[in-house]
């Protein structure tokens, strides 16, 4: 084998590989002072039919409505009636109460897994409230707020989390992987970003049938790195699909900070630029900004002006899931240092400033919702909890693989039933 040519003498430094690293690790004191926060009324609100190229700066700015004193200002102010604001606050508080109780239930060994959305409530609740009830939502795994905002029965969520007798998914899915077609909520996969092209397909179908319904879909900034994300944006721009893409940039994908999805180089909203899609980067902890941006995108989609990508700039205040320990990779103080505060506190402050809410009502509502969740939990637990017996007939394991069960599954089902009978005796019934 011949010797490879030696490199010509060069005064260039050697190449070096960049491995992204978050600025703060456990033990550091986080300081987010360098995050650019434009004035609350500084971002113009273009018409819903504006061409994407004419509104690129919105991919790099930050749509805001609530300032840090609780005032709603600027062209994006959706001017919601106080009653609507109170409903939004109630849904967010209910979601947090639900999360707290289900997290505890997992810690008490009542289920295998749970995921909270603390700090990110606005990104699903305000967003869902800004679209029509008939529009179709394709959630990722942290959008329980959609179900809450559409008044899905809490007990059904809990039954699913417990895989109990009341779980209409027959205990087949990991907790929180809900499915609720009557509430316009697509089955949660558990694989990441696969719902993105599916939402586009649903939206394309709606458009091709001359329907008026649109689709919305969520993923995290981490899973925006998946090929499915880019497949979806390609199809959406090609067919001008009536779909809203939400990227919830909560800074962390388990232990990987947003830099591992490209966040060191540009914004996630800017992904829209290359596809010729409208992009909005918004304060995801500002429920009114989320509402206003979603309403803008929904109006755009519904008038055949095409898709919108919304980056919800927010922060994951808690661990990824009950299986995660964020203290192992990020400082404890990040959530409190986050400059955009907490969405519930901010909406509360706004309502109080309007004279439409007060501390007394807030405390009373918090208590009422805690009670509601607690009572519902007791009802759900009467239908069983995971690990305390098996709640579904064994043969349901083989049902719904196909519409009709083929012979090989019938054979395997008979084998399994014989195994269980040998173990539990012939009189066993689901608990």
């Amino acid at each position, binding site marked *: 084998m011949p010797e490879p040519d030696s490199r010509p003498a060069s005064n260039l430094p050697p190449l070096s590989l960049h491995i992204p690293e978050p600025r703060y690790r456990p033990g550091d004191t986080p300081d987010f002072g360098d995050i650019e926060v434009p004035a609350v009324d500084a971002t113009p609100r273009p018409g819903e039919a504006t061409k994407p190229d004419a509104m690129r700066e919105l991919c790099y700015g930050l749509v805001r409505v609530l300032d840090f004193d609780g005032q709603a200002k600027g062209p994006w102010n959706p001017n919601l009636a106080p009653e609507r604001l109170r409903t939004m606050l109630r849904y967010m508080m209910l979601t947090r109460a639900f999360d707290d109780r289900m997290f505890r239930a997992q810690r008490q060994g009542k289920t295998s897994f749970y995921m909270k959305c603390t700090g990110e409530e606005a990104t699903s609740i305000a967003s869902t409230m800004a679209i029509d009830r008939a529009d179709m939502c394709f959630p990722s795994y942290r959008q329980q707020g959609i179900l809450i905002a559409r008044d899905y029965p809490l007990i059904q969520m809990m039954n699913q989390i417990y895989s109990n007798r009341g779980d209409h998914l027959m205990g087949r899915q990991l907790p929180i992987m809900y499915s609720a077609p009557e509430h316009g909520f697509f089955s949660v996969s558990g694989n990441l970003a696969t719902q993105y092209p599916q939402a586009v397909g649903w939206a394309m179908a709606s458009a091709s049938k001359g329907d008026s319904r649109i689709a919305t879909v969520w993923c995290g900034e981490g899973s925006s790195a998946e090929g499915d994300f880019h497949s979806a944006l390609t*199809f959406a721009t090609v067919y001008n699909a009536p779909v809203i893409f939400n990227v919830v940039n909560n800074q962390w994908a388990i232990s990987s900070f947003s830099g591992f999805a490209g966040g060191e180089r540009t914004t996630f909203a800017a992904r829209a630029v290359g596809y010729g899609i409208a992009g909005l980067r918004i304060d995801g902890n500002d429920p009114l900004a989320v509402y206003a941006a979603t309403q803008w995108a929904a109006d755009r989609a519904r008038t055949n002006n095409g898709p919108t990508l919304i980056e919800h700039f927010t922060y994951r205040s808690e661990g990824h899931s009950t299986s995660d320990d964020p203290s192992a990779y990020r400082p404890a103080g990040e959530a409190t240092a986050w400059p955009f505060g907490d969405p519930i506190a901010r909406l509360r402050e706004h309502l109080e400033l309007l004279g439409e809410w007060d501390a007394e009502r807030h405390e009373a509502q918090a208590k009422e919702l805690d009670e509601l969740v607690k009572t519902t939990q007791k009802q759900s637990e009467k239908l069983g909890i995971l690990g305390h017996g098996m709640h579904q007939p064994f043969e349901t394991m083989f049902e*719904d693989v196909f519409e009709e069960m083929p012979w090989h599954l019938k054979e395997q089902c008979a084998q399994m039933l014989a195994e269980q009978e040998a173990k539990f005796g012939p009189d066993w019934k689901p608990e």
Partner: protein
Amino acid sequence: MAEDTKTMNMIEAINSAMDVMLERDPATVVMGEDVGYFGGVFRATAGLQKKHGKTRVFDTPINECGIIGVAVGMGAYGLRPVPEIQFADYIYPGLDQLVSEAARLRYRSANDFICPMTVRTPFGGGIFGGQTHSQSPESIMTHICGVKTVIPSNPYDAKGLLIAAIEDNDPVVFLEPKRIYNGPFSGYYDRPVEPWSKHAASAVPEGYYRIDLGKAATVRDGEALTILAYGTMVHVTKTIVEEMGIDAEILDLRTLLPLDIEAIEASVKKTGRCLIIHEATRTSGFGAELAALVQERCFYHLEAPVERVTGFDTPYPHSLEWAYFPGPVRIATALTKILKD
């Protein structure tokens, strides 16, 4: 039936199946790379866009993950998508949407959502397609729980099976043996290609009919041994058997999943010998599954070990494709061996 039949090759029969379904069911949509105005690189969708309109038959970006993912969403809306993947070799970028989404949707949502999608895709070699236009991925499909796998071997079956696949409420992978699109293949690549018009199965009804999934067809009755084959290999096998004057029973499986186990069992118990023939690579190929089933169910009827004739465990070579292909010599050798034992 006879007065409405027309002589069709495989392509025309497949085209006719989609035409019939686009006409019958407004939920049916056909999409894929180059399938619209142009009518597909193999012409399977020729004329369909002009007849049924652009929103029913349309081109897609070159993005198989997107094609299958979008089809899952369309199915959730209530459409009945029939995506084409231009070559079966290109299905891999869309495999996650097929395996983890389409195939699982009914199960994971306990019937809240279904995926009535039929993925059509040409597969197999013998057209000098090289390693990226020749593969036979059927055992990858049969290994997924929740997907049906169908492989026709002639125009009549292709149309009836495709209509049944489109009407099926579960995802179906419909693998089209492209070597026999224009005529049945004898296995002798150096002989002229016989057109479909000389074959009885080219008489295809112009209207609607279906062949239920999960049923094998007996191509040839016989007593000496049972040969299990599908797609292109049905015709190659039949040629060799007839040349050698062997009284073989040939089953064309037509659907690999769900498999027609009753037909296989009855035939092998009758003949006592079983040869399995496929073009796909050998290791973990569908032949391994068939061999296991046959020995589980027919062991005490067997007079010789179950044999497999397959492609080799190499990528499909370009210039040496006929050395790879399980052709007349490989089949004759196996027949001689299994009948001698």
